């Protein structure tokens, strides 16, 4: 009975003592200085041991090597120091590396922003110059037909600015507006988009081949915003029409592999140079082909953004000769049942 009591008392005492001890040790080890000392200690002890044992010079055989105790102590000390260092300061060094990485990302973002502003400045400058000239013409010419022409020019410049503004707003809104998530029938959507494209004045007498595989089962739906997805294919097709001539062909192909739906918009137009290919998705980037054509320079950036918001991907392949052409590939995950 008494022993039991004593045992119990001891148990209670340890129970009380243990947390305090743990607490004390915890606090001790949380101090940076302690951790540094504990880490470096084995190394210092190793050196001391080496110096001290040197006097005895009593080599001991370890396997095939011959090694004196002092050397062994040093190696063991260094090893322990490295181990403790990795344990105590691993996180810290990771943080230090990450900080460098973040610095890089920030620098890149700054550069992107500056580039965006430079390009925006350029995109606004041109239509504004046109507008200014048209207004001067309007107030200076007296013939009605000339005034009418000046008015038309002003309206043209205005429409360019409005389109730029509208696309900028779309880009901004994509980040803020919640995405509609409903099942979308991609083949039906593509048929609508191809119809819409072919009713454009620029696409008169142009043929777009739409190829939809129908065997053995219909395409599974994609979850997303039908209107935004139709904008994706509209932009890609409009580009294909814009950068080809009547002698070239434009094709839209759709396939599925059970996980994704794959949509390709292909043409055999002039193609994009390898140097420009990685930049075409940049906001307001204009390739040499795109100079002098209509467009805000935001279409592909917007298209890519929408695809990414749908957990998909947008890629491009292009060649300028033997044979030439461009293929945009959109990959969209199908709805899981």
């Amino acid at each position, binding site marked *: 009975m008494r022993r039991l009591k004593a045992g119990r008392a001891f148990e209670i005492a340890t129970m009380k003592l243990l947390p305090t001890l743990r607490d004390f040790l915890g606090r001790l080890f949380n101090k940076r200085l302690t951790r540094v000392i504990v880490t470096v200690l084995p190394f210092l002890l190793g050196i001391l041991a080496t110096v001290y044992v040197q006097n005895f010079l009593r080599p001991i055989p370890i396997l095939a090597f011959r090694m004196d105790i002092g050397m062994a102590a040093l190696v063991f000390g260094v090893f322990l120091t490295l181990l403790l260092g990795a344990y105590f300061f691993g996180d810290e060094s990771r943080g230090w590396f990450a900080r460098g990485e973040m610095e890089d990302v920030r620098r890149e973002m700054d550069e992107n922003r500056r580039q965006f502003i430079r390009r925006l400045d350029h995109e606004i400058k041109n239509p504004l110059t046109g507008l200014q000239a048209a207004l001067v013409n309007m107030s200076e010419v007296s013939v009605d037909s000339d005034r009418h022409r000046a008015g038309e020019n002003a309206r043209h410049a205005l429409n360019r600015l*409005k389109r730029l503004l509208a696309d900028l*707003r779309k880009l901004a809104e994509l980040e803020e507006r919640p995405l509609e998530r409903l099942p979308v029938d991609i083949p039906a959507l593509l048929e609508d988009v191809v*119809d819409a494209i072919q009713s454009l004045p620029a696409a008169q007498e142009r043929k777009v081949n739409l190829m939809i595989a129908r065997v053995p089962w219909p395409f599974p739906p994609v979850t997303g915003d*039908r*209107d935004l997805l139709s*904008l994706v294919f509209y*932009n890609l097709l409009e580009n294909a029409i814009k950068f080809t001539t009547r002698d070239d062909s434009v094709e839209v192909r759709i396939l599925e592999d059970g996980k994704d739906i794959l949509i390709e918009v292909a043409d055999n137009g002039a193609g994009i140079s390898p140097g420009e290919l990685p930049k075409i998705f940049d906001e307001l980037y204009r390739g040499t082909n795109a100079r002098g054509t209509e467009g805000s320079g935001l279409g592909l950036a917007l298209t890519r953004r929408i695809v990414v918001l749908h957990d998909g991907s947008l890629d491009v392949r292009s060649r300028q000769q033997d044979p030439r052409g461009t293929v945009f590939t959109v990959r969209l995950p199908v709805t899981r049942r």
Partner: protein
Amino acid sequence: MKDERSLILLADDDPSIADTLAPFLERAGYHVLTVSDGAAALDKVHSHRPALVILDVLMPRMDGREVLRRIRRENLWLPAILLTQVGESSERALALEEGADDYLNKPFDPHELLARIRAVLRRARPGERSLSTSWILSALDLTLDRRARRASLKGESVDLTPKALAVLEYLMTHPDECVSRERLLEAVWGWEYPAGTRTVDTRMAELRRTIGDDPEKPRYIETITAEGYRFIAPVKGG
């Protein structure tokens, strides 16, 4: 009305807009009063009792929404058009919540503003609440609860996508008016879509299917060839 011409109060803090819109509206036959901030707009509503007020959303001293909220709190039901600065969809939904009869995204064609003004004035019944400020709208068997975002047919709830519901809402608050597809796009989607008119037609087909309206013999929504759509059933607010 002392003058035969209707008095329009135009509140916008940007002089380049107020100075160019006012003469345009005067030429169209209205009397126009311009102010450049929200507080002044509220004063003029009290002192001049305009037939219609056009409010910019972003204004110094009091923004357009706050002005409208105060006007409605005083049980003044004069028609109001909000000019929204940014095309955020949340802002368009709010415009209705604060009791705007219509709204336009900047930049807009002045002719579009004129069309809005005419439609809103034609619909307005002096001193009465307009449909735009009613939470529950009903027409024949169809009821729309705007706050709950729910439509029902003969008391049975029907399943509509948010876009289709917003289309129905816009049509029901603008009954007997020919609403173009472009107008619907701007009001409901907030963007101009290049393939937009088809986008509208797709939603319209969904809406008609759901409420069981035959496009050949419509009870609710009539198609006006090459123009747009019109809600033909009489709408009651509540």
